[in-house]
């Protein structure tokens, strides 16, 4: 087994590729650093010069609005130069390989790559081939990982619930195809959440998911009992084509979060969603916009968390 490819030889964060295998000290360091940045976004002058003179390349091989934009804002608030590349419509379509693209951009003196790719392991592969002074942040690779999303979710949970050690968290929906769910599970278990549940029909659960340290529920009315934090996952329309589900209507009836189902959880439970939401598919509008929803604060915190990750990487 190789050394964790995210850590340098001093055990510090070299790349952020996954929440799996990161020590709790690093996760907490990111969350604490994000706390200090959270204030910056509310100031009149929102810039701090930590990444001045550094170039951050947003390499998005798969389309994204929210993640790419929040990374861009985060980098700009740290005074970095940001270059956005929408590779889905450029070099790759001309046949250039992923590594050639990366090597060319490295030659332009990139300091940091923020990578999103449809294939699991793409960010790992890039990280293992760039020069040692370049840092790679995984902004989502296939079904594998989306660590900054998970970290901003942890930040949100800590903001509202203070302590991880007495929580029950439920993740509801398409766990099988979700990089967000995988990263959340690793982060939650590492941070000491005693009970993490996944709630989904069997067609949307990967095999041996219990080995990740979660409890499996197929019945949402059982699964939401005593729950402090509910994380709803986006259901993609292609799941209906792939024979995973019969219809969005049936899915909503049995797994969609309504006010009625929400009332089964603890009274002060919070509702989260990584976005983009399908209203009326996995979540009812009344819940999404309701007083227990923290979905918009999640987006805001995403900026501070991404600032924290970038500044910590640049410092190592």
């Amino acid at each position: 087994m190789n050394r964790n490819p995210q850590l340098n030889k001093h055990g510090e964060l070299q790349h952020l590729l996954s929440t799996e295998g990161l020590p709790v000290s690093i996760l907490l360091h990111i969350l604490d650093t994000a706390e200090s940045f959270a204030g910056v976004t509310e100031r009149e002058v929102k810039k701090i010069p930590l990444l001045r003179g550094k170039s951050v390349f947003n390499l998005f091989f798969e389309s994204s609005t929210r993640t790419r934009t929040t990374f861009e804002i985060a980098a700009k608030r740290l005074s970095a130069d940001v270059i956005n590349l929408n590779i889905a419509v450029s070099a790759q379509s001309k046949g250039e390989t992923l590594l050639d693209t990366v090597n060319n951009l490295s030659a332009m003196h990139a300091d940091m790559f923020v990578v999103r790719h449809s294939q699991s392991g793409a960010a790992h592969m890039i990280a293992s081939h760039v020069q040692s002074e370049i840092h790679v942040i995984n902004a989502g690779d296939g079904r594998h990982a989306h660590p900054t999303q998970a970290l901003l979710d942890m930040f949100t949970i800590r903001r509202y619930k203070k302590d991880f050690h007495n929580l029950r968290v439920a993740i509801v929906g398409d766990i099988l195809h979700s990089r967000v769910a995988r990263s959340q599970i690793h982060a939650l278990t590492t941070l000491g959440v005693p009970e993490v549940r996944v709630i989904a029909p069997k067609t949307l659960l990967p095999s041996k998911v219990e080995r990740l340290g979660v409890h499996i529920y197929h019945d949402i009315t059982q699964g939401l009992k005593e729950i402090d934090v509910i994380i709803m996952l986006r259901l993609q329309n292609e799941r209906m084509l792939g024979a995973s589900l019969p219809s969005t209507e049936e899915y909503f009836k049995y797994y969609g979060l309504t006010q009625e189902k929400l009332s089964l959880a603890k009274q002060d439970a919070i509702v989260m969603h990584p976005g983009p939401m399908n209203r009326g598919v996995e979540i009812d509008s009344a819940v999404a916009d309701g007083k227990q929803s923290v979905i918009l604060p999640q987006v805001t915190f995403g900026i501070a968390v991404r600032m924290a990750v970038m500044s910590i990487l640049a410092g190592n």
Partner: protein
Amino acid sequence: MKIHIKNGRLVDPKNGVDTIGDLCIAAGKIASINSIPAGFQACRVIDATGLIVCPGLVDLSARLRKPGLEYKATLESELEAAAAGGVTSLACPPDTDPPLDEPGLVEMLKHRTKSLDQVHVYPVGALTQKLKGERLTEMAELRDAGCIAFSHADAPLVNLHVLMQAMQYASTFGFSVWLRPQEASLANNGVAHDGEIATRLGLPPIPVCAETIALSNIIYLAREAAVKVHLCRISSAEGVSLVRTAKQQGLPVTCDVSINHVHLSEMDIDFFNTNCHLVPPLRSLHDRHALSRGLIDGTIDAICSDHAPVDEDAKLLPFGQAEVGAMGLELLLSLTFKWATSMNIPLIEALNTVTLAPARILGIDAGHLTLDAPADICIFDPEEYWHVSAATIKSQGKNTPFLGRELPGRVKFTLTDGNIVYES
């Protein structure tokens, strides 16, 4: 050329021989064992003290990438690799470009390999035209051109009616049909074993039932068609038990496993190591154990290298996009030897799985050290370790999960038809 191999440890599964002795070779054949014929004047004496002298290896699956895929490998590079690995006979699957579905292609391949005069090459013909699973190939013509069996390589054969027809047609002529069991609709574009590692890494999974469903289909169809079937590279514990039952019922099936699957499991994928992107996928530790048990009890007859040289760029991609396969011709002996040592399996039994057993599946006179048999011989040093690296591998493909490892068992000489084709 007359060669006298002196004082080696002769290991011959066919004749149950495992003893220190001499071997004399003349006119391409084994002229004597443990005695020197009167008036024998060796042109070359090989001192095999401390070395093991065994039949040359017979590999049931080695892609030479000819025709059409020369950017991955050439006949020259791969046959040199075979010789360096102690392999003296190999069967090459039909998944070339174009596939081996026409007599002309097979004749050319036979001619080219014969002119290189290093290793015996036995093409396996395509079962259907272009490996599309629709129309049968001219099997009898292909046999006359040199094909020893017919297979569908790793191409899906979706239509079971076509498969049954192909089996019946092959059975008409007494040909063997080689199939790697995998139900394509269940594999569903997966890239890794459906288990904990695929779940952690978010890799699209291939369930074990993709293998067992296909195996059941093949076994029932083979019974119906009364055809000799060879099952290629099974990967799962459930698969082994299906084959075991089929054999107990007296079906004429044989079976092999790739050496990679004997040693490795899904765990070796580690952080997306694309050299572990194999077909079939590396499965669980439980499956790996069952494959070893299957070899020991004879359910699995043979170990193959499943040699698949891939150019470097095709592996420098995200796991799911990286081309499948690993080179293995030069590793087969060392890895089989290592397996025998670590599992406490008598060397003679382990060597059987890479010499006599595969030769019998091919139906060729090879894989043994009998008087007057063709002098296809491998001589290796069991004590010498070697480092697997791009520099030490002769195959054009440097893709193997064993890169960087130290392996026991160094080939010192390889003889094909009494000619020294490799010497280190």
